[in-house]
């Protein structure tokens, strides 16, 4: 047990998996709507809309839980960093992933209870959770209730601009998910990090 540290409390794990499932549903249904084609029906459009709407609302609630959890529990500290000198650490971590790990080097930043994310993770999680997610949620809500939110603000083009932003950020989150899942295979063993998100314990390299 000495090589394992308890990093992920129950609420974080529950939130994480709920977030993952909802994001997957939103990506699949979002793609299905954006590229809908009667000749190649991937999913019924009305089902895609319904699933996308419901998942979006649950994701919004889940995101609020995430924010409240980060305000009222120590988990929030994991997302704080000083900008000064931080990108040097990000570069070090990047170097490790692209060069050091193949040379058998140790990871430059040890995973501890105080630092459960490496600098690259922390930076990307903050970018996704504190920039992309609020934008995608707000634009999503605006598209869900266009008659209330969009009609007068930017005129008749408002739905178009809002949807463009929603789709672009949705795409960024999709790319993040692919990269995130891949990087999770870089642990003590390829499946170790996935197990951590079930049992809460991180296996050290």
């Amino acid at each position, binding site marked *: 047990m000495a090589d394992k540290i308890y990093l992920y409390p129950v609420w974080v794990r529950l939130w994480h998996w709920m977030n993952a499932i909802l994001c997957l549903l939103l990506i699949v249904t979002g793609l299905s709507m954006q590229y809908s084609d009667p000749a190649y029906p991937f999913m019924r459009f009305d089902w895609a809309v319904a699933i996308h709407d419901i998942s979006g609302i649950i994701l919004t609630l889940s995101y609020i839980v995430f924010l409240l959890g980060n305000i009222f529990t120590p988990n929030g500290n994991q997302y*704080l960093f000083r900008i000064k000198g931080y990108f040097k650490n990000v570069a070090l971590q990047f170097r490790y992933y692209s060069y050091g790990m193949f040379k058998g080097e140790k990871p430059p930043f040890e995973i501890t209870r105080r630092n459960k994310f490496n600098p690259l993770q922390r930076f990307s999680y903050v970018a996704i959770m504190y920039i992309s997610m609020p934008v995608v949620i707000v634009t999503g809500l605006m598209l869900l209730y266009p008659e209330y939110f969009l009609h007068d603000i930017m005129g008749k083009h408002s739905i178009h601009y809002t949807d463009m932003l929603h789709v672009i950020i949705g795409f960024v989150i999709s790319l993040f998910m692919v990269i995130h899942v891949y990087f999770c295979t870089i642990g003590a063993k390829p499946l170790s990090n996935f197990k951590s998100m079930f049992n809460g314990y991180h296996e050290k390299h």
Partner: protein
Amino acid sequence: MIKKLLFGLPLLPLVFLLFFISPLSSQTPIEEEEREYEFLEVNQKCLKCHGHTYYYYYNDWVERDIKARMNPYHIVDSADFYVSNHWNFRCVDCHSEDYAEFPHAGELRMEPIYECIDCHGGDEHYAQYNFEAIDEEFHKSVHSSKHSEEFTCWMCHDPHTYRVNARTNDNMEEFIRYDNEICLSCHANVNRYQLLTTVDNPNILDMHGWLPNQGLHFKSVRCIECHTDISDDLMVAHNVLPKEKAVKKCVDCHSKNSRLLTSLYKMQFTDQRSLVGFSNSAMLEEGYIIGANRNYYLNRLSLVLFGLVLLFISFHVILRLTIKHS
């Protein structure tokens, strides 16, 4: 704790959003072209009675002035008439000159009523409207086939008030509303609906309960987009289908080859399709239809980015496997 409260910052846009709730904008008035009304005076002889809900006359039998209710189907709103397509007509151009006499002679009730094709058919001046095809399509429609001769052009296009919209009104929201009000004048009005049938008038909102963002759909498309068989020869389809045959597949509109291109946006679309930029860009002038408006450059860029990520991951995996095994 103050630092941690910063985590609440992303909630601000949500709160901010609530302040964006605003009432729907009022519609812009139609700009009327400059018109010279030649027949105001002569038509006023009819409209002084037929332009009001009550009319007045001197009754010789009882020797006093009488205030009588006008038959609501014989009222012509002069304000509507003078912005209609037939604004420059005299009443007697279509009705008997004998109506000049009051009380009107009983046999005038037998006066035949013109249909659109009677005046507009075979006339080069109206060739662009293709009234012959309209007439043909209308006679195939459920309106004509179910109600035979009771249902005439007039039921939808009252010649005293009707004005062309799809070709002339740049305000799409307004012309959609105008056209939909024609349908709703019967389908949301039990009195008019039951002039033709004893069947209960179904509730339009309930019948369309399956439609997501129902209000937005009703404001953004006309009823005929889904309830007619689109004809290539006509700007506005007139073959109204039985409700079972109405379009119910979202993708028929929400896709690259959207049905709306050949109906609602037919006017704008004749020569505006392009391979690059936004597909169906003319739609973007008026709104945005998910599935129908895609950006060529963004599509390509997203594919390239996604490909690069997969390439990077594949390369990384190969390196991990190779170096591990060696």
